[in-house]
């Protein structure tokens, strides 16, 4: 039905089918396909393939967490200054899968039902990171400036419907800068700010919905920041910082030890 045509295999025929030619080549192919059935068929095949591909290949819709991250990056790239590609990727691989496994198994550290369902946990993590960056950007880390936890703790009274633990960690090398309130996960929460050298740690805490174990999950990496989720039994908390994962874990352990005092579930943490 169709005779061979040496032009039917020319790459330029694809460009013609795609409407990407102009000038003399366009003129030539226009004339040619009018008389060459084989090449005309080939144009049809290319277009059929294109339609099949468009209906077959999924496009990727960004999650709201990714959108938020990108917005953050576009708005304030300076907050990520000093980030290295390698740092952003390699730990996240390891920690990311570790966290996923923990969330699924929920048993790695004997935390039981500590972890939120993955979706809402991810969402809260995004909000936590966002709150940390926002506070750094607008230079609004603290509403009550004090290194004294005896000043910071009463300040929260009347601003929150709970009394957050406000441990003094100066002896552990994490002096307090102060505190403020934040709106996270649909509720007002306490934000405590500690420092180590040039690094800031934002710790967000609020009462856990139900009683639970005491402990922390391994650090996750979001936008180059390390994030740790944990519970003191009665309180849920998130810590976020540009501290390295080891130091942030140390901070969280110290914080847990002090904040969990008096909570039987936190003995020996």
């Amino acid at each position, binding site marked *: 039905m169709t005779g061979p045509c040496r032009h039917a295999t020319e790459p330029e025929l694809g460009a013609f089918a795609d409407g990407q030619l102009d000038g003399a080549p366009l003129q030539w192919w226009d004339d040619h396909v009018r008389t060459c059935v084989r090449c005309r068929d080939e144009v049809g095949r290319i277009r059929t393939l294109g339609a099949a591909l468009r209906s077959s290949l999924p496009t*990727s819709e960004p999650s709201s967490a990714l*959108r938020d991250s990108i917005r953050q990056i576009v708005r304030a790239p300076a907050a990520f200054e000093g980030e290295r590609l390698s740092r952003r990727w390699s730990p996240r691989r390891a920690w990311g899968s570790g966290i996923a496994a923990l969330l699924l198994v929920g048993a790695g550290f004997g935390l039981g039902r500590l972890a939120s369902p993955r979706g809402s946990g991810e969402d809260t993590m995004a909000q936590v990171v966002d709150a940390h960056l926002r506070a750094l950007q607008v230079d609004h880390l603290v509403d009550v400036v004090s290194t004294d936890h005896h000043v910071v703790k009463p300040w929260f009274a009347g601003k929150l419907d709970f009394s957050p633990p406000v441990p003094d960690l100066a002896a552990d090398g994490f002096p307090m800068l102060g505190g403020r309130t934040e709106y996270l996960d649909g509720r007002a929460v306490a934000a405590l700010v500690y420092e180590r050298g040039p690094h800031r740690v934002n710790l967000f805490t609020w009462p856990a919905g139900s009683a639970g174990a005491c402990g922390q999950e391994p650090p996750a990496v979001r936008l180059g920041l390390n994030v740790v989720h944990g519970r003191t039994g009665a309180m849920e908390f998130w810590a976020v910082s540009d501290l390295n994962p080891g130091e942030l874990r140390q901070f969280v352990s110290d914080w847990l030890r002090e904040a969990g005092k008096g909570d039987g579930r936190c003995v020996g943490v």
Partner: protein
Amino acid sequence: MLPHLAAALTLARYLLHEMADAEDAVQEAYLQAVRHFGGFRGENARAWLLTIVRRVCYAWTERERRFAWTPEPEEVAQVPTADDDPETSLVRRETQEQLARAVDGLPLPFREVIVMREIQQLSYKEIAAVTGVPVGTVMSRLARARGRLQRVLEAQGMER
């Protein structure tokens, strides 16, 4: 740049296969875009952004030594012989899956031109700009990639 996020993510996903990797790559690309390029001044923000996304993906692919990712050609050539549905106007689900797998199995240089042309409908000039090769090379890569994918379609009885 946010309007191009879906396009950036789609390209990254096809280059790196994994969605988690793609999300990381896209964040890195936006960061580089904002930080190192001092804002965009050309006329084609999408192509510019995709160029950075692609560069980040390649850098990572290199680092992860995933160069040797080669498809099983037989995998895409499986033909269900008994299934001779005359309904050729619609691409059947089975064919769609075969096609998607075939695209995932294409070597990187072919995969990226197919994604940019057939999904994202970039012009040849834009693809040339993003990939850093001449338009003639884009043309020949597209032709070769289409040749491979055409065989998948034919094996599925799409063609008369």
